[in-house]
């Protein structure tokens, strides 16, 4: 493979990379001007033929999502840019929006044009005040330059972009939760169908795409679909449901590595390459105990699974939920897997929106059990109970509306399956008198936050 040149991150280290002047000096907004005279269907066809898949976690083909919009709808059609990046370990969108906001905006404008959108909302999480300022400045610059507003560049096309700030809730990253939140309601995900493309925000057809996805759209229009397909992992010919993993991807690397950061590479990098070639290896000369392949929802790779390719199909072959956001968190050999699972369970118990009972109760039960195990009152039976919770919550077993609790279940399932010995040892060591108890035990209440 030829030497890879970063595309999405090409400008982030240039001085004043966030200004329109600097962005246009490197060829920015050329595609936007070109697209305005193109037929919308041609734009969609280019994106479709690139096989671009959503970068937010689910990996749904972007061009296909756009074609679900009803033909000849009188409008309005809305675009929601999902910038509620809250999956633990993930920060690629923050870097894009903070260092190169015009790249994101150009991608958003092209995507909005292709989908006949007249209003686009950027759903930005509250925790990114720096992005808020940079994006708002960039939007203002675009209005001043005539790239946004009414009758853009005399094309007859009008587009307004607004930032809608979230309020620190993980569930707002789920596309229908995000839509409810924009409408001013509690962010309870909706039952699908109808999908947002048919009935989304304000009961109108709506497209929800991730920040990195629309940034890719810009580069596909710049360089063509063939360029995009020249990178990554082709579809498995024996699996008709595999759409392939093409294009560059922003990998986030954090946790116990020497050089945490956001790195761009073609899809298909292995976890080991990411940690060793980019991250400088595990920190302090220690060895890797486990790696989260794509945000904690995706589960865990064990120390013998580091050759897992981080593409859309790879982590699934190793028992993980999927690629997710491609945010790898490295855990070294001196970290307890019980602490890992406790942290994960606490996160999901905190962030469950409370709409579906299996998720609301299941995530809390898992946390209570892990609190008890950590307090030295764990029983071997608890591991089976935890695994049972892991098997029964989520949209995969079919008990909840959205995928949040699949994300809660996978760390539980993977940790207990891949590290059961460590859990058993921990429980026996900390509760030598009671680890074999199988009768119900009183609920253990903790005052810890």
């Amino acid at each position, binding site marked *: 493979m030829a030497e890879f040149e970063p595309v999405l991150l090409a400008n982030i280290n240039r001085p004043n990379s966030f200004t329109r002047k600097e962005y246009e000096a490197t060829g920015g907004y050329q595609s936007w001007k070109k697209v305005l005279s193109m037929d919308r269907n041609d734009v969609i066809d280019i994106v479709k033929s690139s096989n671009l898949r959503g970068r937010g976690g689910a990996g749904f083909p972007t061009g296909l999502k756009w074609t679900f919009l009803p033909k000849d709808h009188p409008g309005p059609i809305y675009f929601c840019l999902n910038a509620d990046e809250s999956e633990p*370990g993930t*920060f690629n969108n923050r870097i894009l929006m903070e260092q190169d906001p015009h790249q994101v905006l150009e991608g958003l404008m092209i995507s909005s044009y292709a989908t006949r959108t007249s209003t686009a909302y950027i759903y930005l999480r509250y925790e990114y005040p720096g992005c808020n300022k940079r994006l708002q400045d960039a939007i203002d610059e675009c209005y001043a330059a005539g790239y946004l507003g009414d009758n853009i560049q005399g094309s007859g096309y009008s587009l307004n972009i607004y930032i809608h700030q979230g309020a620190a*809730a993980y569930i707002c990253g789920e596309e229908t939760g995000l839509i409810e939140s924009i409408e*001013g*309601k509690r962010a309870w995900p909706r039952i699908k169908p109808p999908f947002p493309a048919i009935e989304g925000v304000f009961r109108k057809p709506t497209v929800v795409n991730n920040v990195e996805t629309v940034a890719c759209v810009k580069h596909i229009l710049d360089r063509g679909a063939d360029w995009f397909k020249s990178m990554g992992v082709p579809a498995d010919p024996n699996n008709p449901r595999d759409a392939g993993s093409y294009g560059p991807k922003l990998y986030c690397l954090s*946790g116990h590595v020497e050089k945490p950061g956001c790195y761009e590479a073609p899809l298909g990098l292995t976890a080991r390459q990411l940690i060793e070639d980019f991250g400088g290896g595990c920190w302090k000369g220690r060895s890797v105990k486990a790696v989260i392949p794509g945000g904690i929802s995706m589960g865990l790779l064990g120390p013998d699974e580091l050759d897992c390719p981080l593409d859309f199909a790879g982590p699934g072959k190793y028992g993980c939920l999927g690629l997710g956001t491609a945010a790898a968190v490295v855990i070294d050999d001196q970290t307890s897997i019980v602490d890992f699972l406790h942290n994960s369970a606490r996160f999901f118990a905190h962030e469950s929106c409370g709409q579906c009972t299996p998720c609301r109760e299941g995530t809390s039960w898992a946390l209570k059990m892990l609190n008890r195990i950590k307090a030295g009152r764990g029983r071997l039976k608890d591991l089976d109970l935890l695994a049972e919770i892991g098997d029964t919550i989520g949209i995969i077993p079919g008990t909840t509306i959205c995928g949040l609790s699949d994300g809660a279940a996978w760390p539980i399932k993977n940790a207990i399956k891949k590290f059961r010995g460590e859990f058993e040892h921990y429980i026996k060591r900390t509760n030598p008198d009671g680890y074999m108890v199988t009768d119900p035990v009183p609920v253990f209440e903790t005052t810890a936050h």
Partner: protein
Amino acid sequence: MATAQERFLSDEIVDEIKSYIPRYPSLQAVTLPALHIVNRHLRYVPMQAVIEIAEILELAPAQVQDTLTFYGFFKQDKPHGQVRAWVCRSMSCAIRGGEAVLDHMCHQAGIHPGETTADGKLTVEYAECLGACDFAPCMLAGDDLHKNLDKNKADIFLDDLGIKAKKS
């Protein structure tokens, strides 16, 4: 509509809320921006503000209250401190010492997470992933991201706020 003398929200706040109305096809969609505006000015959103937001947006107060309570972000009983510091406790930060920093800061300031110091200068909150895992452990205080925190940096941060750290 109540007159300006009777209203709890200032004209400035009301005008700012109204400036968001053209952005959305429904009034209810302005709920979250309105809560943010009130919170930015007052550092909390008391019930009287909820009632007046509802009046502006032609909603029942319960609808605004319903949205407000869903997000743990908005305080309703009393204002948060002049600085609200969110210390991340999610995975990447926790395994690099984030929870120890959170405990240390709370101990030094003499409060629990979610509480405000008696002088009203600081509220310490735990955060779920601030999206700055490359700088773990990290903290968002106001609009400033504090990177690669340790106990030393936390003490300096408290010192700058004029909060005397306890000798431990």
